[in-house]
Structures are given as C-alpha cells and as structure tokens.
C-alpha cells in the first residue's frame, strides 16, 4: 500500500512539474465547452438541451489528450522495467497510475463542470446529476484509457492510434453520463442511469488493471 502511495505521489508530482501536462486536459475541457455557445448561438433553451452531451463529449476528448502520458514516458526511460521489478504487482501499478491520471484530469473536470453547466444555461437543479455523473463516470475514462495506453506503449507517437482504440470504448460512459443530465432536465430521476454509470466504472476497475498489465508485459519483451 505504501508503495502504491509513493507511485501516485510521484505521478502527480511529475504531472504538475514543467512539461508534465497536468493542467492541459482541464484547460482543453474548458475551452472546448466555451466554444459551444459561440458556435451554436446563445439561445438558452437550445444550450440547456445539448449541455449534458457537450460536457461529456468534451470530457472524453480532454481525457484522451493526456492518456499517452500514463505509460509512454516511463516506458521510454526505463522506469517501467524498474516498476515491474518493484514489490508492487503490475496490476497495482496500473491502478495507481490510472488513479493519478484521474486526479489530474477527471477530478478537476468534475469540479469545474457545474460552472460550465451554468454557462450553458443548465438549471441549477440539474447540476447535481451532472457532477455526480462525472464523479462516478470519469474514473472509467482513466481506467479504459490505461488499457489503451498500455497496448500502444511501444508505438512511437501512438497518440492517434490510441484515440481510435479508446474512443469507441468510451461510448457507454458517454451515453449514461449525458443521459443522467437529460433525465434530470426533463424532471425524471437521474439515479437509475447514474447507478449504471457507477457499475460501469466498477467493472472497469476490476478488469482494466489485468488487461493493461498483460499488455505491458508483452510490450516489455
């Protein structure tokens, strides 16, 4: 446990240092959402209706941006070899790195989402569904992304390949996240959909570490 903690601290520190790109995902998220009213026009009813989908699509793309950071640098400088020899199980390493990725992308996006939601004219009664949905759903983005990043770790500049691999797998998270906002907007209870989203995240948490660790072992050969 202590080793996993040290790994998460290390990844967070690296993400926040110069060139770590820790804030890039959130900055992209904010910019992408701010562009929407400029493109769609400022008619309140239209914005509110598309807000859930817009926020979730922007979140998916922002999470994608920083995925290659999860393993690529460690693979290239030999750190990954050392992590494989460390007392941590490789599955633990994957889980720790996905957690660090979430703290630098999913968590800040979740925190800033209500502000952007207000900007898109979402009624404040709907904001809890948005925030809870993102808090429950975005960890799945980091976990699925870790699998994609592990598979493409040996590919130089594999960012594009990674996007193509991972985006289709993000579809369920997108559907349930956006649908929760939509249900709240139309006066239905968002909870059934939120629960499915949470189940999805748990499913990914159980499976992704094993898949990513297997991919990393093959790439280390």
């Amino acid at each position, binding site marked *: 446990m202590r080793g996993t903690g040290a790994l998460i601290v290390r990844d967070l520190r690296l993400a926040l240092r110069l060139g770590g790109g820790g804030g890039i995902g959130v900055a992209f998220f904010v910019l992408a959402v701010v562009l929407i009213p400029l493109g769609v026009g400022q008619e309140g009813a239209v914005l509110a209706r598309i807000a859930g989908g817009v926020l979730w699509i922007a979140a998916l793309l922002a999470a994608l941006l920083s995925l290659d950071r999860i393993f690529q640098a460690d693979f290239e400088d030999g750190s990954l*070899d050392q992590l494989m020899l460390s007392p941590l199980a490789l599955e633990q390493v994957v889980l720790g790195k996905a957690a660090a990725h979430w703290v630098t992308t999913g968590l800040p996006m979740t925190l800033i989402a209500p502000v952007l939601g207000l900007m898109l004219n979402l009624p404040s009664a709907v904001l809890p569904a948005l925030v809870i949905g993102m808090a429950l759903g975005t960890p799945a983005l980091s976990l699925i992304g870790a699998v994609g990043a592990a598979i493409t770790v040996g590919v130089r500049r594999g960012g594009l390949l990674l996007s193509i691999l991972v985006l289709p797998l993000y579809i369920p998270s997108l559907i349930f996240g956006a649908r929760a906002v939509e249900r709240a907007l139309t006066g239905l209870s968002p909870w059934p959909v939120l629960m499915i989203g949470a189940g999805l995240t748990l499913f990914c948490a159980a499976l992704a570490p094993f898949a990513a660790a297997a991919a990393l072992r093959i790439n280390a050969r």
Partner: protein
Amino acid sequence: MDLSLENLSCRRAGRLIFSDLGFRIDAGQAAALRGPNGVGKSTLLRQLAGLIPVAGGDAMLGEVSLAQDRQAFQERIAYAGHLDAVKPALTVAENLALWAGINGSEADPEKALARFGLDAIADRPAAQCSAGQKKRLGLARLLVTDRPLWLLDEPTVSLDAEAVGLITGLVADHVGAGGLALIATHVDLGLRDMPVLELSPPGAAAAEQADPFLEGAWL
C-alpha cells in the same frame, strides 16, 4: 543462495538468441558476462530480470525457479539496464527517494547519494545532470532496493575512472555481504576471482530452424 542457469534458452520474435546456456554463480561471487555486440548479453540480463519469457530450460536462484515462479524470482533481483529510469523533471534527491518509497526500502537514500558523490547536486533537477551523473543516479537505486542478485548491464558506460572504481567497490561490498552479481561489461572491473560467462552467437543451423510462425512467436 546461488544462481544456476540450466539449459536456458531465449527467443525473441522467433529468432533464437541463445540456447542451452549453463552457468553457476555462488553466493558471494560476481560474474562477468562477455561477448561481442549483439550476441544477447542485454537480452540474457532482461530475461533473468523476468522481463522476457523463458523459451526453454530454467534459472534457479536458491530454491526459486524463474520459469515456475517469475514473481518470486523478480523480488530477488535488482536490475540496472542501459536506461537510467531518471525523471528529468524531479531533483536528484526526489528521484532516488521516490524509488526507495516504491520499493519499500528501509535504506537511507541520502547515504546512497553520498556514496555516489551526488549529495552536492541533490537539489538540482535531473534534467541538468550530465550523462555520467544520471548513470550514477540510476546505479544509486541499487542501494535502496535490497535485493540479493544484481544484474548490471554495462554499468561503466559514460562513467569516469573514479566512478568505475566506485562501482567496483560497491559490487565488492555487495558480494562480500553474501550477494551475487552478473555484470555485462567490456572493461576489466578489477574484481578478484570473477567467473566469466562468455556468450557466442548460435550456430547457423540453430538459427535456421527457427520459424517464427510455426514456433508460435505470436503467443
């Protein structure tokens, strides 16, 4: 504890790198791994570190078998390869302290830094270090890992004469305390009674028979 290689073989992408390797290192011994470029020295060290699967035969470290129980074998290995695993964005001291934390080592990172002459630049970002300083920092990790078998891949590259002496002293201390080491190197480290494992390229016949598809390289 001793290390014995029993008919160890290795394939990469279906190509036979070496086969039927037999060798033995007793506790308290450091062995040299020699051979021309491209013969598979680094591959053998990576295989012993459990990073490349065993294609045939086995390596035994005490009672632990590499082929049967890779995880337990890996927990007895410290590996220093060509890559230093140094993060340029972190300072020298942070780099080492984080590895000590991940490895759960009780050893004092500051002592390891001092031993490698890095204490004066402990607060400097590793990005500003020279190649030799990064190499030292990579090797300093050995002291915060506490493993019996050291696998060193050309540890003297980009080091000055003084630092090479330092490595020699370090390995001598390690084996003196009952540890083992296998060191791929082209220079004479000046360690006494060092057994030598000489790798030579596999014969043409052995290389011929390897068909990547039939041999299941895709597995």
